[in-house]
C-alpha cells in the first residue's frame, strides 16, 4: 500500500528539517512530499540542499493551493492514501500507521487525526471557535466531528481524486462537512499534537474571526447550493 505524507510549508525554514528528518529516519515506509508555497525564507533552499522530495510552487497560493498540489502529486503517482501533515512539527508521525489501519478496517474515506476524539477538550478562545464549527456541522450533517479544525487528515484514493481536481475543496472544516453530506465516510482517530516549536501561528484575532465567519457561513448556507456527489 502506498501512502503519501503531504507537507505544505510556508516559511517553515526553522521547522522543516526536524519534521522531514523525523519522517525519513523513523518512518521511511511512508513517502513524503514537501510543497513549498512560495516561501519568502530559506525553506526551498534547505529542502534542495538536503535533497528532500520537494515541489516548489513559484508563487504563494495559500494552504488550499499547496495542499491541492500535494493531492495532485498523490493522484499522478497513484497513491492509496494521502495524509495532510503540518510542516511546523505539531503533528506526530507515530499515528499515521494507526490512521491508515483505522481507515482500512472501517472502509473510511477520510480519517481526521483528532485531539478530542476520546479526550476532553480544554476551555479556551480557540476551543469555543472549534465548538461553534462542531455545532454547525452537527446541525447540517447530523454527525459529531469534535476536532474539525485539526490539520492532520487522511484521505483515500477516491477523495484524492476529488480534492485534486475540483474547485472549492480546500483542506478546511467546510469541506469535511460537505463531504459528509455527499455521503463520504468520515471518522476521527485520537492523536496527540505538540505545541509549535518555532515560528509564528498564522491565526491572530481578526483572522480568527474572519475564518470563523467564513467557515460557519460556508457550512450553514453555501453548501445547500452546491451540487452533491463524490
Amino acid at each position, binding site marked *: 500500500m502506498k501512502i503519501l505524507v503531504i507537507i505544505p510549508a510556508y516559511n517553515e525554514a526553522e521547522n522543516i528539517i526536524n519534521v522531514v528528518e523525523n519522517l525519513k529516519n523513523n518512518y521511511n515506509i511512508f513517502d513524503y*512530499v514537501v*510543497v513549498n508555497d512560495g516561501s519568502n525564507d530559506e525553506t526551498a533552499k534547505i529542502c534542495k540542499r538536503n535533497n528532500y*522530495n*520537494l*515541489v*516548489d*510552487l*513559484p*508563487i504563494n*497560493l495559500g494552504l488550499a*493551493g499547496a495542499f*491541492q*498540489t500535494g493531492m*495532485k*502529486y498523490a493522484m*499522478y*503517482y497513484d497513491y492509496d492514501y494521502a495524509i495532510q501533515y503540518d510542516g511546523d512539527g505539531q503533528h506526530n508521525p507515530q499515528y499515521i500507521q494507526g490512521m491508515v489501519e483505522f481507515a482500512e478496517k472501517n472502509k473510511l474515506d477520510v480519517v481526521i487525526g483528532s485531539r478530542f476524539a476520546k479526550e476532553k477538550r480544554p476551555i479556551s478562545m480557540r476551543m469555543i471557535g472549534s465548538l461553534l464549527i462542531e455545532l454547525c456541522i452537527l446541525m447540517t450533517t447530523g454527525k459529531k466531528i469534535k476536532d474539525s479544525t485539526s490539520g492532520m487528515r487522511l484521505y483515500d484514493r477516491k477523495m484524492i481524486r476529488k480534492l485534486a481536481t475540483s*474547485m472549492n475543496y480546500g483542506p478546511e472544516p467546510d469541506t469535511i462537512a460537505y463531504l459528509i453530506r455527499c455521503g463520504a465516510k468520515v471518522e476521527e482517530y485520537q492523536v496527540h499534537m505538540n505545541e509549535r516549536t518555532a515560528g509564528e501561528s498564522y491565526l491572530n484575532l481578526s483572522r480568527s474571526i474572519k475564518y470563523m465567519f467564513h467557515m460557519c457561513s460556508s457550512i450553514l448556507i453555501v453548501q445547500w447550493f452546491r451540487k452533491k456527489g463524490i
Partner: protein
Amino acid sequence: MSIALRVILFIASVLTCTYIARKLKKSQIQVTDTVFWIGLSALFVVLSLFPDLVGILSELMGFQAPVNLIFLLMIFLLLIRCFLMSVRISQLEDKVRNLVEELAIRENGRH
C-alpha cells in the same frame, strides 16, 4: 426626461463608445469583452434620442419619473456585469492555481 439629462446621457454614451473603440483599436481589450459596453452605450444613445420610449415604459410600469427607470436599468445592468466579472475572476484564479500546481509538479521531475 429633462433636456439636460438627455444631453448628458447622449454625450456620455457617445464618449464611452469612442473610448471603447480606441481601446479596441490599441488591442487593449478582447472583442468579446467590448460587446457589452458598446451595447450599453448604444442603448443609452437611443434612449437619449428617443425619450418617449422611456416615458411610455415608465408609465406602463408605474414609475414616478422616467429618470428612475433609467437609473434602475443602469444599476441592474451594472450589478449583472459585476457578478459576471466575479465569476470570471474566480475562474481565472482557478486556472492560475492549476497552472502553478502543474508547473511545480512537473519541475519536481520524479518520472
